[in-house]
């Protein structure tokens, strides 16, 4: 066949690239990897769209998540954007809150930044397990209301929630600090082993099985001071 493009032979092929092209391309690659990691995690850990909240399950899911993100190079902005993707359901047909929150936590815990700010108030969906196993030297600030198991397994980090939290806040936390400016739900501090939870608003109920740590309400220490009869 004759070459129908001969007229353009002398045109130098030049693609004028501006930094925006590189930024968007790099970001897209990272997002694709993060998304892929999440979808694989869901495939492995979630059977028939059901994910049970059991300790062993949670631990296993977190390990799997960490494995998935280990080789990735991302930053806080990528994490924010991933939250937006989870919320919008355009690329993610279904969001299973538990694994999503654990995956997010894995991303947060291994991000290069020490201080991460996310805005759950911008999202329609509720994220659970935010701040799971947040390590020492990390600060996570959540602007807006979040779901259950916030700060579960906290491992020395500092978690600030500028809003309210659901149930099982600080469940099984080892060390570190949780500050909630709104209210907390039921079983706050369940299985807590150390660290501190500060709630400025009301607390639905305290966890009955606690092994250490302190809980403050409106600046006043309520645990280890027993006030079970009030709840």
């Amino acid at each position, binding site marked *: *066949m004759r070459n129908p*493009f*001969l*007229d*353009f*032979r002398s*045109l130098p*092929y030049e*693609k004028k690239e501006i930094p925006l092209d590189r930024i968007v391309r790099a970001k897209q690659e990272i997002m694709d990897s993060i998304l892929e990691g999440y979808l694989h995690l869901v495939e492995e850990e979630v059977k028939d769209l059901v994910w049970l909240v059991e300790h062993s399950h949670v631990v296993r899911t977190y390990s799997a998540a960490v494995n998935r993100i280990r080789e990735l190079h991302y930053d806080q902005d990528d994490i924010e954007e991933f939250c937006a993707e989870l919320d919008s359901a355009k690329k993610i047909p279904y969001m299973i809150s538990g694994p999503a929150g654990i995956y997010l936590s894995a991303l947060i815990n291994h991000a290069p930044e020490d201080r991460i700010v996310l805005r759950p108030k911008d999202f329609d969906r509720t994220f659970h397990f935010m701040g799971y196993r947040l390590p020492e030297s990390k600060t996570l600030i959540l602007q807006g209301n979040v779901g259950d198991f916030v700060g579960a397994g906290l491992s020395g980090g500092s978690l600030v929630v500028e809003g309210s939290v659901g149930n099982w806040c600080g469940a099984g936390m080892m060390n570190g600090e949780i500050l909630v400016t709104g209210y907390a739900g039921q079983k706050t501090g369940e299985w807590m082993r150390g660290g501190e939870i500060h709630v400025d608003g009301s607390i639905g109920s305290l966890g009955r099985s606690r092994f250490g740590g302190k809980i403050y309400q409106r600046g006043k220490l309520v645990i280890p001071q027993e006030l079970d009869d009030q709840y």
Partner: protein
Amino acid sequence: MNTEANGSLREKVRDIYRYIQENLYLNRPDMEMRGEPFNAALLMSLLTGLNQGKELIIGEPGLGKTTSAEHICALLYRIPLGTIWGSEVPGHPEQTEEKIIGRPDLGKLNQGEEVVVWSHFTLLPVKIVDEINRLPETKQSMILDGVDRGNWEYLNDAIINREYCLFATANYQDRGTNTIIAPLIDRFDVMVESKHPGPNLAYLIGAEGTNGAALRHEELEAEFQRTLGERTPYAVRMERVEEICDRFGKALAKNTGIPTLSQEERQTIRSQKEELPLELDFNAFLRFVLAELSFCCRYGQKRSHEGCEEGCHFTEYLCNTIRNCVSNRLPISARNFAQTLAWLLGDEQVGLEHLKAVLPFTLAHRIQWKEEIVAQREKEARSDPLEIYMAKQAVRDMHRRYMEQGSQVKNALAVACRIMDGESMEPIQGDHPLYWEIRKDLGEEVFKE
């Protein structure tokens, strides 16, 4: 290229245009090229005459469709009006091959010899068919071959016109009209409307009349009549005709100062315009247009009897609004007319603005729009007939798309060239049908759901 000769020839053609515009075909300018106003119908007719093209002129009765064509032919080809009138083919259902093309020499026929007496229509380089849509379809087919190649056959004889242009007029659809058959309409290079000039110019026409009498010459017309009726070989006759044309031209120049073009000048213009190079944007945009008018993601190409699927990805492009596939005559017409326009404007290259100016007129009669698209546009305010209006809108839309991504398109074509030359590169991807077509040319199987 001899720019000096180029310049004076160009001036002469512009003088012809100006003379007709001011004396013979009074009408408003309705298009602009680089700040210079033109009347589209007259300009396209001029380009048709220079180009050996074929033009379809539509319009309401009495608005100068035939007259404008006659005047252009008279001045560009140096043929007096009377001779042109005598060669015109009127469209009516009872037209016969004998009236259009030629008849047997009755005297010779009675002696058992077949000698063809060719009609003036076939002999003369200027051909005007009046109200072509009143011809039945079979007669339209008859003209097809002659119109397309200048090749006329009758009995066992044939003549081939060395130089010719065709003007056909058509009224809007009424009781007595047929449709112009698709193969014939596709052969027209351009379609224009001869508009009403407005009440003020119309008054002038009524009060003063137009000075067509200046383009008559009884003596020479008689000589034309004699020469065309001679029973000599076609080539010999045409040489004689050319001599009479020259005499008519000189007579006009001497008596009235009206400019005309000789055969040599017309040939010079054609070769000069052929030499004008085409800019890359012209090249790329024309490919861009052809892609939108022929592409179908599902069926490989557009076909009149195959409809678009709902939910096709390419709904933003013209392929989704038309029913037929554009023919290969479109790029030929577009290139010819754009080049001639560029020559007329004195430009050294043929560019995007020349193409944009002529494209609607080359497209208007070649596109079959979907009914629902016509329904949407029918009632919009406009100053052109619907077909030309929609063609102008289509060109405008495609141009806007091209302006946005012109450099990517050219890059894609450049990369494709390299790939064809053997370089190992990936073709540039894009949403526009042209990118898909480039990949097809490079041998890729492309199918998009």
